[in-house]
């Protein structure tokens, strides 16, 4: 087990290295002087010279790469030209809202999607099944921001149940915090629910065909127990895999949802950085999100061992 974790950890290093390499070359491959690009439209010649010095741009590409990697490993992501602050600090300030939004979204998704998928599989071919599948196709098709504005219009403007936009830190009290996160969480979870409900249903359908389910039923085990502890447990591995893969969707969605709901998180930081052409921040955010994505999928692999003792690496 420990050996597996170690091997799996080692395997993520080339992937992350590749991401870093990609981010490094992304800037170098753009036409023009990277220092001028980094300094932005308002960069003074002095600033540009400073950046060239800082990044070692007058040196050869391999030397630049070594310098960049060295700084990266020290956690030095450079300084934002837009916010005039170290990028690391900028990111730290923005983590809480994004983490909160992602957590609320995940909870809403799992609470709704898994039961939906189980019921759809249990009542295979019925109207409930068709409804769930229909919702799933629809959920994939309605863009996050359209869904966001629709929910704001119905629940915040017409019914006045929730605030329209904004964010409150958890340190201001739990209820105001949750109250403002509910609509964004619901918005972001729609596409995720569509994905997870679909895979839960497919995975359950496969398992429900197995002999041991028939055996359990024939020996008089209650249907609820058959579904939850016999079937769902065995269907869990693909569901957890897709939850992990879906994190990429979630990250993309966070960028949009935070803009719609005016939440000062990492997603908003990304958009602000892009609009301000603040490349150190863009690079840092890409590195961070990719890192999180890779690590979550590593964690998913490890969860398999807990879910299914048969999997021994």
């Amino acid at each position: 087990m420990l050996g597996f974790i170690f091997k799996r950890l080692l395997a993520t290093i080339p992937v992350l290295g590749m991401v870093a390499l990609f981010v490094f070359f992304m800037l170098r491959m753009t036409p023009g002087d990277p220092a001028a690009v980094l300094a932005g439209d308002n960069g003074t010649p002095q600033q540009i010279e400073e950046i060239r010095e800082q990044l070692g741009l007058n040196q050869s590409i391999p030397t630049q790469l070594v310098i960049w990697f060295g700084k990266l490993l020290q956690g030095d992501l450079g300084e934002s030209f837009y916010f005039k602050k170290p990028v690391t600090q900028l990111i730290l300030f923005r983590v809480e809202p994004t983490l909160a939004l992602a957590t609320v979204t995940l909870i809403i998704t799992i609470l709704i999607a898994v039961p939906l998928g189980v019921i759809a599989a249990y009542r295979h071919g019925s109207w409930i099944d068709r409804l769930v599948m229909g919702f799933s196709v629809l959920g994939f098709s309605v863009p996050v921001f359209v869904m966001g504005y629709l929910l704001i219009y119905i629940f915040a403007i017409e019914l006045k149940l929730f605030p329209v936009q904004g964010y409150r830190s958890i340190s201001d009290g739990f209820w105001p915090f949750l109250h403002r996160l509910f609509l964004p969480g619901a918005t972001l979870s729609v596409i995720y629910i569509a994905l997870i409900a679909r895979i839960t249903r497919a995975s359950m359908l496969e398992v429900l065909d197995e002999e041991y389910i028939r055996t359990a039923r024939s020996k008089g085990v209650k249907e609820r127990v058959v579904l939850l502890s016999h079937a769902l447990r065995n269907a869990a591995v693909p569901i957890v895999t897709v939850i992990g893969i879906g994190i990429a969707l979630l990250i993309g969605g966070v960028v949009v949802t935070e803009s719609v709901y005016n939440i000062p998180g990492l997603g908003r930081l990304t958009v602000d950085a892009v609009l301000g052409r603040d490349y150190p921040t863009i690079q840092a955010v890409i590195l961070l999100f990719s890192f999180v994505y890779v690590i979550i999928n590593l964690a998913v692999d490890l969860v398999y061992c807990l879910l299914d003792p048969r999997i021994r690496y």
Partner: protein
Amino acid sequence: MTDNTEILIDSAAAANASARSVSTRYLLIRNPSVIIGGVILLVMVLIALTAPWLGTTDPTFIDPTYRNKKPGAERIVMDDSDAETLWVYRMGTDSLGRDVYSRVIYGAQVSLLVGVTVAVLSVLIGLVIGLLAGYLHWVDRIVMRFMDGLMAIPGILLAIALVSLWGAGLMTVILAILIPEIPRVVRLVRSVVLSIREEPYVESAISVGTPLPMILVRHLLPNTIAPLIVQGTYVCASAILVEAILSFLGTGIPPETPTWGNIMAEGRMLFRIYPHNIFFPGIFLALTVLAVNMLGDGLRDTLDPRLAKRLRA
């Protein structure tokens, strides 16, 4: 029936092939998903192609005297010969006085152009790389490392970053959406090739010394076509969504160009008073993506029964 009998007399192999294509065509026509999706998509294509003749005006024409009108607002216009005609703003006007209806209708052009171009290019590029990677081990080792790294970066994020580096425009947006999609197609083609190359007919082709390009084109390529058509439709749906997201965030195609994302981005500020600027383009966008997704699901069920079974059972 008589057709089939005649073919049967001709040759058994021909009959098999023909029966398969006849039944596939039959199944496609009978699949409700394909019909509904296809019809909606056809309507959208017709709208995009005939936009100038659908009662539209210049979608970029700014009229400061007629800003922020509700849908159905009327106005009497004098034409060159001083005749008065009644002009109806079917979907109102935006905050610059542009006719939202005309912008929504013209918006179909950009969405479909981006969707189809990205789908076709990603399939073609992914096919070439995937065939080579699946067949040649040394290509595989280099290419897949690269693809793993690329896939670890959430797609929307990568697209946003690329557009911000390259500058906004139709071509850069298409390229930026295309690049994150390629690894997914490569993986699909590669997995098909890896499973097919173990088949006896490929091994025997290798053993009689068939040249490599011949093996790739004659034996491996045909097996990838069905899954690629399915994947292509999903790529198309996703590309349309990502283009809208880029425009909406203000990082995509320049704002004066009528795209559904741009109309919504423009309508954000006054959303509480004039929600129609978000909802009309939103409905068109969701309907188009829904149609492409439904078409994809239908194609998958008929063309790729193995995958369909795994997902729908």
